[in-house]
């Protein structure tokens, strides 16, 4: 059941990304071009998503458990660590350069384009690199 739900969520998420404009790097770069010809459209993506998610999240304290799983598994950390900020800085730089974040990049694989495939391979390598670095430090 959880697997079926996850598949439907992934599918719906992809449609939302495609409809919103997040799969168009030019829109993303336009949104981040705050000193140039700023295109505020993508602020509405986050606004809409936060609105719905905020309402849904308000139900969590009233539920003893999720409908299809045994317990909620939600992040609990609240500390703003150097690692968090460094990671967000690198991520943001990549997002601004390429105009793609992980979800839209994966959704765009369907086009069969070489450019997006290169981005996804590099992104996977970056994730793998983080994993390897963590193991070396451990």
């Amino acid at each position, binding site marked *: 059941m959880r697997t079926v739900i996850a598949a439907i969520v992934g*599918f719906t998420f992809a449609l939302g990304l495609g409809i919103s404009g997040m799969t168009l790097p030019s829109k993303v770069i336009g949104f981040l071009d705050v000193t140039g010809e700023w295109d505020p459209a993508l602020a509405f993506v986050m606004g809409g998503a936060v*609105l*719905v998610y905020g309402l849904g999240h308000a139900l969590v304290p009233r539920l003893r458990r999720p409908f299809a799983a045994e317990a909620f598994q939600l992040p609990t950390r609240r500390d703003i660590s150097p690692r968090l900020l460094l*990671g967000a800085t690198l991520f943001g730089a990549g997002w601004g350069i390429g105009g793609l974040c992980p979800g839209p990049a*994966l959704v765009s694989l369907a086009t069969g384009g070489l450019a997006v495939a290169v981005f996804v391979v590099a992104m996977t390598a970056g994730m793998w690199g983080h994993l390897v670095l963590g193991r070396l430090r451990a």
Partner: protein
Amino acid sequence: MTPGDFVAPLSGGLLIGAASVGLLLLNGRIAGISGIIGGLINPSRGDFGWRLAFFGGLIVGGFALLALHPGAFPDTPSQSLPVLALAGALVGFGARLGSGCTSGHGVCGISRLSPRSMAATATFMGAGAVAVYAGNHLLGGL
């Protein structure tokens, strides 16, 4: 900007929010793409199937978009291949180091009023703006 310009972003955002809420209230999980995919690269027992199913849903969703709404995708790549490789590596490494990306921090975390996610979202938007500025003005367009 005309009202028509924000109908699609808002509709897409509502759909992203609804999908993410579904994962929260049904499965009890955060819909953070980089976290879900990161767990595929470093699998742990009993925690792989749903991640793979989510990934499959995203990919199939991409094909549905291609068939029904091909305008969702650009005609030409945003950058040259080496630049896209650099961008992809930064996105992948940075999202894992920073414990999340646009979805996990920017949507779920902001909605949950998580201080970490608010700090991360402000930081990655700022870094993105700097990267775009640098690309446009200092490097004369990459």
